[in-house]
């Protein structure tokens, strides 16, 4: 794709200088402060990270009644947990969990842009925003998942959720086999961002 397009030789340096210029001018003109951008970034580094999603998934794995409540009314179930203040804040206003089960695998995409459940998963990884992923996953989800290494039985139904409205969907992956007796912290270590969007399964425990 890149071969047909020309880029300036200082592509990244020019963008870096331009964004720094924007930030400096907006500070000078009283739009923001010299700390505003760091405040935003700090929020996503320390509070709204995939750790929140991992805790939600682990609770669903270990408490079937919670899992049922999570599927029926995601915001209310998320509010039960001891998570940072703001789970219903920016891009979490309408959270909606979709739950994998034997024979059903869910995949969340955003074909129009990059809608993502920030409070649950933090900010979207690059692959999620890649036009090739967005184009292909809508039409050939099984092929895409196999390409990304997700083992799918022929009779597993792949459901695609295109985030075109307000719901910010995330996936509760299936609990891997051989995890009986693991602590919540150990279980959380198996839950990746990719598994909570549906392009991966939860990791298997070490040694399996």
């Amino acid at each position: 794709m890149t071969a047909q397009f020309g880029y300036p030789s200082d592509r990244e340096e020019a963008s870096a200088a331009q964004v720094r210029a924007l930030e400096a001018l907006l500070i000078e003109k009283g739009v923001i402060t010299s700390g505003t951008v760091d405040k935003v970034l700090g929020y996503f580094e320390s509070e709204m990270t995939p750790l929140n999603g991992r805790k939600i998934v682990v609770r669903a794995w270990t408490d079937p009644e919670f899992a049922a409540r999570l599927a029926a009314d995601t915001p209310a179930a998320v509010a039960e947990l001891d998570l940072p203040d703001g789970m219903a804040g920016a891009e979490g206003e309408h959270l909606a969990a979709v739950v994998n089960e034997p024979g059903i695998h869910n995949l969340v995409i955003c074909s129009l842009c990059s809608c993502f459940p920030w409070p649950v998963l933090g900010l979207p990884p690059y692959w999620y925003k890649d036009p090739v992923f967005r184009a292909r996953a809508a039409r050939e989800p099984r092929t895409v998942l196999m390409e990304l290494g997700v083992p799918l039985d022929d009779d597993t139904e792949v459901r695609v959720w295109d985030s075109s409205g307000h719901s910010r969907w995330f996936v509760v992956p299936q609990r891997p086999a051989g995890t009986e007796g693991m602590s919540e912290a150990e279980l959380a270590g198996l839950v990746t961002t990719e598994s909570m969007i549906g392009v991966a399964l939860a990791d298997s425990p070490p040694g399996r």
Partner: protein
Amino acid sequence: MKLQHHLGGLEGLDSPIQFEKRVFVQEWETRIFGLHTAMMALSDSLRDAVPDYDMDAVPSTFSTTWTWADLRKGAEAMNPFAYFQYRYYEKWLGGITAYLLEHGYLTQEELDAAARRFHEDPAAPLPPAENPPVDDQVVRYLREGDSPRRGPADPAFAVGDGVTVRNPPAAAHTRLPGYLRGRTGAVERVLEGSYTYFCSTGADGLGEPMGVYVVRFEPVEIWGATAEPGAGALYAELYEAYLAPIDQEGHQ
């Protein structure tokens, strides 16, 4: 039609997925993300938000509306070749720069001079400026958000109803994935309440409070003979303005 509205299902992009798991691949991308989010948090449109933001008490000189709709409109207005040429946050940088110039927050001369300065000395410091109430509003927005959900709804469709997606003219901005135009599905879920949008999308139909639905589509209905063998259902969340009763616009 706009390519950006029809990305889902676009053929010919057969290259492997770039499975880049980082959120940012260049340090500068973090800053444009932060600027965009701060502008959303200071947007004049929050006067009408559900959390009762007291925007008059926020001592920022930002006085216009900047929402996801404005960012998306910029990306949807791009030449489709350029849309593919630029990386995700390069598109943000272009759109946000154009908006700030157009709304008079800075001039091209100021921008060029400052960019030249930082190009020559990337480590040059940012000007110091403290104003805690501005930063407090930014954090408050992150924690409390901006829900478009408004009063009660009077939904035209119920769970299980067949619906055909309308085919409104291509607009500057839409929330209707192009591949669903003219397709028929079944209402899976009716969202509680009615929903506005950040702006009017004109003849496209969004803006006023209306019902929103999760609609289930069978792949063969969307893609016909090229549907992937064994593919399961596709679900999209669609505004009532995009839906017609199954027989009204005909099944294409």
